[in-house]
């Protein structure tokens, strides 16, 4: 008796039944995450930390752009663009600022299992 009532209730509640279907759920998630969620990108944390640091150092933070160049499943080259007038600031005397940034970004990448390099390009 109670079984019959339960199935009747499920049949009424169509949206719930759909959501509870495991295959549908993972397909939906893959779709949503595939559409530009940062976590899906190789070295996403390294990229966000690079962006955060670069924006704090330059005069034109909105000109900071990072192009990730994936070199494999666990290797990424982060190509950092800044405004022309900010090049000197991001590189620093004898490249010291750039070197420090690279070291921190590499450590963050290594933590998520990604070999990360940073190229400063104009």
């Amino acid at each position, binding site marked *: 008796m109670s079984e019959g009532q339960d199935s009747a209730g499920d049949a009424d509640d169509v949206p719930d039944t759909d959501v509870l279907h495991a295959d549908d759920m993972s397909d939906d998630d893959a779709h949503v995450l595939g559409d530009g969620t940062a976590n899906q990108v190789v070295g996403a944390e390294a990229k966000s930390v690079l962006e955060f640091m670069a924006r704090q150092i330059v005069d034109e933070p909105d000109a900071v752009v990072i192009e990730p160049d994936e070199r494999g499943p666990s290797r990424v080259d982060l190509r950092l663009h800044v405004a022309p007038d900010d090049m000197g600031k991001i590189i620093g005397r004898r490249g010291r600022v750039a070197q420090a940034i690279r070291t*921190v970004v590499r450590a963050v990448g290594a933590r998520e299992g990604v070999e990360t390099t940073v190229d400063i390009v104009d």
Partner: protein
Amino acid sequence: MDDREVPLNEQADTGRAFLEGLVAQLSLSASVATVELDEDTVELRVDGSDLGFLIGPKGATLGALQDVTRTVVNRKTGGRNGRLMVDVAGYRQKRKVALERFTREVVVQVQQTGTPRVLEPMAPPDRKIVHDTVNDLEGVSTVSEGEEPARRVIITPD
């Protein structure tokens, strides 16, 4: 960028805000505290769990993090006066204690053998710890030789 005098606490606040932002970016459960070491030196201490990756081999990543923090502070405040240090998980303090202990062991050897000992190349702050430790002891003294980054301390009997 001009080198105007900027109160050290203003520089420390800027550095702390930067480090707090970085910690948030990394989703770490860590806090940043400001500690005045002396009137010219402030240390920003990052403490929390799983911070080893921010220290790196021989503190290399920590050194880089300190460089980036100083750069950000200089850009935002224009100040370069005074010294801003960054420590993560007490690494600098532990290293200082270990280096003092190592130095005292070498001093005992120099006193017993009467021959100088040349230490491995060290960064300036580490050399200062060695100099200070040796200078507190009798019968030994220090000299430095070589060029950065291969500059090293020699402990000699008097």
